[in-house]
């Protein structure tokens, strides 16, 4: 792991990896969305609104996965003092928050024709909203600590504590009465028909690759900004 603690070595890997993740991600995402929109049948109960699944589910998974990645990177930052772990955690925050927001908005749009309401304060929706606010808090904390020039330990601790919300989101439809349906995809299998399941997995793969490319772009930007700051400091000293 410490092999990639050297930013120069990391950049040698990140530069070719960014387009290698981005372009297949974009093609898979667009392909899956078109497949989902025009190549899947109308569902018996939900009608055509089921097609929202192809953007709602990947954004929900990536919103939650993003926070888990922040928590893991924060542990690596605090325990092993890996210099890139904190940068990675900060780079994940904005894409993660955006996916959580997309999940909330597309879920609300899906809820109106299927439940008859835009929003209900049930366990799943509320815990997902809490996740979005946790992202906003993390972004505010990490930008405040980077401005002060410290190693953003407070943000890392916040990232680890915030991970408590992830199993709550996952189990919310079991623990509390919910308008939201129970999990359709579990480790044991899926209750979704293959006509929807295959394009859904393609969509998840595409969005995940895009997420990876976005995190690499933001890490590269952060490393470049650190180089700029170091150079400016040297120029001011001379």
């Amino acid at each position, binding site marked *: 792991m410490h092999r990639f603690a050297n930013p120069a070595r990391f950049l040698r890997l990140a530069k070719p990896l960014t387009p290698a993740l981005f372009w297949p991600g974009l093609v898979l995402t667009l392909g899956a969305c078109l497949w989902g*929109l025009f190549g899947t049948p109308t569902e018996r109960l939900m009608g*055509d609104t089921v097609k929202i699944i192809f953007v709602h589910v990947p954004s929900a998974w990536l919103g939650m996965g993003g926070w888990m990645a922040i928590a893991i990177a924060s542990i690596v930052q605090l325990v092993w003092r890996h210099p890139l772990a904190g940068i990675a955690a900060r780079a994940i925050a904005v894409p993660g928050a955006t996916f959580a927001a997309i999940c909330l908005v*597309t879920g609300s749009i899906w809820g109106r024709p299927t439940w008859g309401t835009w929003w209900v304060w049930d366990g799943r929706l509320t815990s997902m909203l809490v996740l979005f606010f946790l992202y906003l808090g993390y972004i505010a904390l990490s930008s405040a600590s980077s401005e002060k020039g410290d190693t953003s330990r407070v943000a890392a601790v916040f990232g680890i504590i915030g991970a408590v919300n992830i199993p709550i989101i996952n189990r919310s439809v079991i623990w509390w009465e919910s308008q939201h349906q129970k999990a359709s995809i579990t480790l044991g299998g899926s209750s979704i028909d293959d006509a929807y399941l295959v394009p859904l997995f393609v969509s998840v793969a595409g969005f995940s690759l895009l997420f990876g490319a976005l995190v690499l*772009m*933001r890490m*590269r930007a952060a490393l*470049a900004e650190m180089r*700029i700051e170091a150079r400016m400091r040297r120029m001011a000293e001379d």
Partner: protein
Amino acid sequence: MTHTTFIIAAFAVTSAGMAWLIIGSYVTMRRSEALADDLRQQP
């Protein structure tokens, strides 16, 4: 409102969010890396 309106709205929101994220991240990365390279080449 028909189902089509809700589907279009959901995909439009996702497209707008993704476009903002991709363009913002790419522009920030290119601008920062170009400035860092320029400064490195300065004596």
